[in-house]
């Protein structure tokens, strides 16, 4: 099968996903447009060479609706021949979009593609697209639906992570993110966002808090205790996990991923296409995998996705030198490290969504690009990128540095 290579990766800085966030005034189409323009402009690509673009977006309604990818392609002034597809794999949408883009290349359907994602959580709030799982009684009852925060607390309960454990993880995430910014580790891929006048509005991730410590996190109240107690979701979770007397609520705003706005794009193509546009490949995509797993605990899918991807790549766990798992909640990463026996120094080395935020549709593409940069910076060879996903799914991608 044809090899798929990563030629470039860009992302916007992430803006606080609220009305007072720096990117709130920027439309999601504009965010998507700006990353597409960056890929084109900084590499001087004739966009007629780009066959197809897949973008993840998790709340595809309103201004994010109606295949935002194609809207952004048109808005960016790409060649009319470039097609666009919208992808929704919840939190892994950005990585899944890159995987789809790569799969098109591998399958011989396309020579050059872009995978990426966009989400303006400040403008199109999470849950805006509705959905039957939580609301339709026939489905919710049958599947023991609980919100993700309850699932994250269930992971902590089941696998024995204390409030201190999850807080300590969060403090370290903030430290790593701050250090990475200090050392300009994100410089290669950051594309400052510009406003309608063409003036820059944001050049750095807005939610990093270098001074976060155990004490400041200790002051925060658990976010999901009321949802669990008063609304009954703890009881639902315990009906599925009756070996526990109660759910320990340890997650809060400080050890969960932040709500932010952002976009990212990853240029993917076969060897020929690279030559045609005069670019050198930076990484090779070795394997991709998606799985479903138990939906009530919901967020332990990465373990199984990672194992599946390793198996498909014919690789061992020990072949991976660098791990990246989206920091949806601290317990998700702690459980992944526990399950696969991964040292904290080998995972999320530049911090993650607890510090920098999780723009749902874009995050997968953001962390894919971050890992490409980090492989080059550290000189490591193989990395595995994965995300936990609503409904118990997991998506993983293994890449190898070739530059």
């Amino acid at each position, binding site marked *: 099968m044809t090899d798929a290579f990563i030629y470039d990766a860009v992302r916007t800085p992430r803006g606080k996903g609220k009305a007072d966030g720096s990117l709130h005034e920027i439309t999601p189409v504009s965010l998507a447009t700006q990353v597409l323009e960056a890929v084109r402009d900084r590499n001087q690509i004739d966009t007629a060479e780009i066959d197809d673009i897949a973008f993840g977006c998790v709340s595809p309604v309103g201004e994010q609706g109606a295949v935002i990818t194609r809207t952004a392609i048109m808005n960016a002034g790409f060649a009319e021949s470039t097609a666009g597809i919208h992808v929704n794999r919840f939190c892994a949408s950005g990585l899944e979009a890159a995987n789809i883009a790569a799969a098109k290349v591998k399958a011989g359907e396309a020579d050059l593609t872009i995978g990426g994602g966009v989400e303006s959580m400040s403008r199109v709030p999470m849950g805006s697209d509705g959905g039957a799982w*939580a609301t339709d*009684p026939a489905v*919710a009852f049958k599947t023991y639906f609980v919100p993700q925060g309850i699932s994250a607390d269930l992971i902590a309960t089941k696998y024995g992570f204390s409030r201190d454990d999850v807080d300590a993880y969060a403090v370290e995430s903030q430290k790593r993110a701050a250090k990475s910014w200090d050392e300009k580790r994100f410089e290669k891929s950051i594309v400052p966002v510009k406003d309608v006048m063409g003036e820059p509005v944001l050049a750095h991730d807005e939610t990093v808090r270098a001074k976060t410590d155990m004490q400041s996190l200790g002051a925060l109240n658990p976010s999901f205790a009321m949802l669990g107690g008063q*609304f009954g979701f703890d*009881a639902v979770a315990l009906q599925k996990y*009756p*070996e526990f*007397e109660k759910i320990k609520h340890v997650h809060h705003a400080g050890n969960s991923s932040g709500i932010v706005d952002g976009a990212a794009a990853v240029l993917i193509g076969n060897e020929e296409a690279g030559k045609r546009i005069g670019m050198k490949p930076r990484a090779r995509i070795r394997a991709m995998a998606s799985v479903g797993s138990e939906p009530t605990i919901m967020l332990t899918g990465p373990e199984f996705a990672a194992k599946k991807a390793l198996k498909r790549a014919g690789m061992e766990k020990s072949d991976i030198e660098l791990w990246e798992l989206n920091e949806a909640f601290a317990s998700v990463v702690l459980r992944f490290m526990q399950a696969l026996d991964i040292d904290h120094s080998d995972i999320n080395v530049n911090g993650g969504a607890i510090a920098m935020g999780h723009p749902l549709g874009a995050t997968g593409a953001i962390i894919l690009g971050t890992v490409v940069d980090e492989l080059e910076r550290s000189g490591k060879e193989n990395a595995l990128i994965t995300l936990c996903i609503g409904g118990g799914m997991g998506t993983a991608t293994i890449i190898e540095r070739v530059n």
Partner: protein
Amino acid sequence: MSFKTLSIDVDGDGIALITIDLPGESMNVWNADLISDFGEAVEKVLGDDAIKGAVITSGKASGFLAGADLNMLGSASASSTQEAFEGAFGLNAMLRKMETGGNTAKDLKNGAAHAKPIAAAVNGLALGGGLELVLACHYRVVADNPKIQLGVPEVQVGLLPGGGGTQRLPRLAGLQSAAMLATQGKPVDPQAAKAQGFIDEIAPAEDVVAKAKAWVKANPKAVQPWDKKGFKFPGGGGAMDPRSVQFFMAANAMGQRETKHNYPAVQYILSCMYEGSIVPFDTAIRIESKYFTKLLTSPQTRNMIRTLFINKQAAEKGAARPKDVPPSDIKTVGVLGAGLMGSGITHVSVKGGMNVIVLDRDMEAAENAVAYSKKILDKRVSRGKMTKEAAEEFLSKIKPTADYNDLKDVDLIIEAVFEDPDVKADVIKKTEAVIGEDVIFASNTSTLPITGLAKHSKRPDQFIGMHFFSPVEKMPLLEIIPGDRSGDRALATALDYNRKIRKTPIVVKDVRGFYTNRVVPPYLNEAMTMVKEGVKPALIENAASLLGMPVGPLALVDETSLSLGLMLVRSTKKELGDDYKPTGVEDLLEKMVEGLGRQGRKSGGGFYDYPEGAPKHLWRGVSEHFPEADEQPSAEDVKERLLYAQLIPAAHCFADEIVPDPKSADLGAIFGWGFAPWTGGPMSYIDTIGVEAFVQKAESLAQRYGERFNPPAKFRDMADEGAGLYGKAA
């Protein structure tokens, strides 16, 4: 046109007054006759040009309409799903025709048509299908009596409101109020109903018809709000409104928390409201009827209706009462002993309309019974549920005494002194010396054989056992135990008394533990056996909860106390000697009580800790002293063990004729110790899965866990014969 169940009277204004009055019934209900008559009445009102509109009321002082005749529903049989649906949809279609005047929704919406105005004049309770009839009217006037109950209680027997209730209620009152009413089944009074928006007017009882007529006269063109253009659910509805999305998310979780997935009716009610709020009304009521049909044709609903309604009512009306004995007239009860049980019996007797003379060894002890009732009544008074005067009148009916002579005029004796044969013998002798020769003597006991106690009586044919449960005013079951020589009059009187205090009675054989106390201990022992095996206590408790038990077995052991458990083990051992069959948890009880000082809830905790001002939680020491096994069983396995630990002894009781029939076994289980009500009782459960399947499962459990799980021989025989417990008819 002639009607059996209603009359139509058209007045000078052309307004038809439809008065529903089922002949020979104390209460109006939807039965086959009324459904047929009402359908014709609707046709007449709609078809007769001289009739301008209608008012629907009831001819009964007892109420407006109390819902569907559950005997009819319980025996409904259809040869196909489609036929069952058509049957279920009949009421919906009829009410829909009434509210649309037979016009299409499209014509109503664009103003091309309207319906003849129909108003309800509600003079008493309207429940279930009764309230649904009211809701289908265009205007609803209810008498200003706070005792009038308005609600849709179908969920309590495993059904849903199938006459448009799941659609009209949310369209009038909003999803939240409607879901509360329908999933909990609790009725509200007229003021609350008006505040929630599902009735329009409250008027003095004598004016409800006039008010309803006035509205009909003033509103010749009626259209329901949901048939008008631009209708919106109050408070939001549909799949996309953020308010209803949030509502359904929470309702789904709470519904699961409350039902533990054992009562599909709750989910179906929410589904009717969810799906029904997305589609037009005519589609919505078809969806409702489909969910209703699913419930009505399920064995679970049949079992629930049979046990929780039909058999419960029959038992309470005295189904087991010897027919030839003339009714007794119990005005005054003599209660012997003013301890916990005697005081409780005193309380329920007064509540049942009787006077009580309560005797104890001295006045001070006897006064306990008054204090007991006072405490209960004070709470009711402080909550505004009872007036101070009523409470005082209640207490005035209790006469404490230490003098046996005060008992000379009582109509019934209930003895509730200490569970000691000698004490009881003494009391029996002293009491019989003063009471009338024909007075029935009932002895409350949970452990002593009645036949043995009756030997101390001069009149053993008038002697009978009654096993009350504690706390008496809360526990719904009464076990009535005739001894070998108890006569028909004793049994009849016991049941007459029971009817006054409104318990659910079962008549059981005079053997150790009677019925309930032969089943509950093996169940609790099974839970403690699992603790010994290293099963996580939380898993045991949660599995019981998932099974539908109201409290976990370890919590129940704490309530009744481990020390009592240990005491019973020792006394039984002593009494039976070599015949004693070990329970397997003697050592656990000893260790907990004597080794670890864990005696139970009232003395510092048992399997649980009971911190002051916080909810109880499992005592961590349990896992320390009974280490958790590395390999834990599945919740399904634990559930099964806990279930069969009850089914097997209950089956033995039926096989050994300790309970006379399956229905008594079912009633005693649900109302005695809270056996999962969704099953309809242990015998209904066995009947539904099939006796053969039960026997096989029991035998496989016996192989895995021990011979205590072996099914009774009688059930093996029944399995061989392909016999069932209930037979075809309920």
